[in-house]
């Protein structure tokens, strides 16, 4: 099986940024979201990222940066190389890869 190395931004707002690297074997065609979900089960349940639907590209929650470009984790495919994952840069960070993306009037604290 091919192996992807996921280099993932960790930490919350105001934390000193750090990165964790995970090697993950995958089947051809699997998505970055497949990989992240498997990492939570097998390696680190505290890893934070957003998703609601399962690879259907219906909820549009799993936006993040792959090598600096905005992607949906559910449609970007795992590749046998280092893949750098970061939170959306123009949204307030929650933790790791999760940012505040709810419309302002649908938040508990409305700005």
């Amino acid at each position: 099986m091919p192996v992807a190395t996921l280099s993932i931004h960790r930490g919350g707002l105001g934390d000193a940024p750090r990165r964790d690297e995970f090697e993950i074997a995958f089947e051809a065609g699997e998505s970055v979201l497949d990989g992240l979900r498997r990492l939570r089960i097998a390696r680190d349940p505290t890893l934070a990222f957003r998703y609601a639907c399962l690879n259907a590209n219906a909820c549009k929650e799993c936006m993040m940066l792959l090598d600096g470009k905005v992607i949906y984790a559910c449609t970007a495919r795992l590749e046998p190389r280092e893949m750098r994952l970061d939170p959306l840069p123009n949204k307030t960070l929650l933790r790791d890869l999760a940012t505040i993306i709810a419309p302002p009037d649908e938040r508990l604290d409305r700005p």
Partner: protein
Amino acid sequence: MLRRMIVTRTPADVRHLEADVLIIGAGGAGMYAAIEAARRGAQCVLLVDRSLIGRGGATVMAQMTVAAAVGSGDHWQHHLADTLAAGRGLSDPKLAALLCEVGAECILEMDAWKVGWARSGNGFAAVQAPGHDRARCVYVDFLSTGPAVSRTLRAQVQRVGPAIRRIGEVAVTDLIVQDGTVTGAAALHVATGEALTIGAGATIVATGGLTRLYARNSASLNMSGDGYALALRAGAVLQDMEFVQFFPIGHLAPRLIGMDPIMWDPFRYKLGGRLLNGAMEDFLDRWGGDAENGTYSTTRDLATYAITKEAEAGRGSPSGGAWLSFTHVPEAELRGAFGPVIDRLAANGIDLTRDAIEVSPIAHYHMGGVRVDTSMRTNRPGLLAAGEAVGGANGANRLSGNAITEALAYGRIAGAEAARIAASGETPAFSPAAASDATGRLRASSRVVNTAEMIARLQRLMSTEVGPFRTASGLARAGLALEAMRAEVGDAPPGVSGVPHDLARLDWFDLRQMILVAGTVVQAATARTESRGAHQREDFPGTEEAWRLNQLVELRGETSSLSRLPVAA
């Protein structure tokens, strides 16, 4: 007594919200309920969802069709007859009639709200799904029904204005009960990790079903059965928990991303297609299905049975399912029916003129749920349910196309009744003291355990032992394993409160509900010593007239207890 939305701090320093009507879940049922409650005069409707508003749950995932008697010559009573026949003798006819009658009105209102139902001539385009006596299923092209329904309802909710307050990322963990009446809820605010309480004159559970209990499922992350657990712990009654619908032709291989795994159903509606075994032979008629001859006529329970049995007999496709082939359909016809979807398939390396794909049964819907009356009220004052969370209308097997119809119809009915209850002032004011157990749990700390791995383990267990085919020994193994997991999960969530987007902690609150609900499925499936619709016992293969009964579940202390009742007339 209409309440104003106020935000206060209780003595325990937990943030508190007040509403006339609290709606838990912002899928089709929850959003329709919010619109209707506001239309009936509720001035403060609070619509919460554990995900983002209108993006989670099953509605947005529904790429298929919606059944409603809106065609010329059709009548909701014809739809009702098909719904009752599909329910294999266990449907509540009054609830089923509401689904068909009010559902048709909602489909027309959705049209006025410009959802974009596909047209044909002067009317709606409609397809005939298995189990229907005519073409009755409307849709939005191409594979856009669910997203269009979600988007349309969300726009209407926004149009209502300040009477509906929408808040995402609120995972309700307990309902609050005072002297037998539900007065609101306690919740985890996922974004901040903080505890939250909500007081409400009426509360509607619109959280969908329980498909997340299974490893392979067609809904989203949200469908953990949490609404069933909330209702059960609050003293409400559940029914028909043993009836989990497996959708027979869920996508299996090759890996397909960015698409709903149940997307092959509309292909079958429009183009027929052929289900073939590993040797590329027709096989449905071997297991009691029709020889389809290129049409789509086999009901869900029969197709699930046939695919599973053919694979068990060693004649499955390479990944353990069946082949679905459209290679006999000309490319122009494929493109005419599904346009841009053909390109999305090409991006996944699938060329339907050349390649068959592999399919197998996938957890899709739950017929059982919260027991309600024809106003969607539970036996607990102050508590209502709507949508898939409701049990009864679909009996032992749901008719194709009825899920969105049910969501809209029951949402509308529940919203109206909740507005009436809130205005009546019959619900006592929320008491923080009544919520202390729930808020204590939300603020508790414990050692870190791998709750994500435990959920994956529970999903494997349910798929293996409590799938479409059950035996006494498998169900007993599942019951014991669930007991062990209950002990492993413990009484407090891992980590500390106040951590933003803490999925490990959210998983713990989900597990607490999933283990309880999975236990009720096992309990009801064990007791039903017959096979009927979606509940197939390999050790009791026949359907018994004496079992034309609904099984009810209640919680006594920490233990769920089962009783039986003749099906409502």
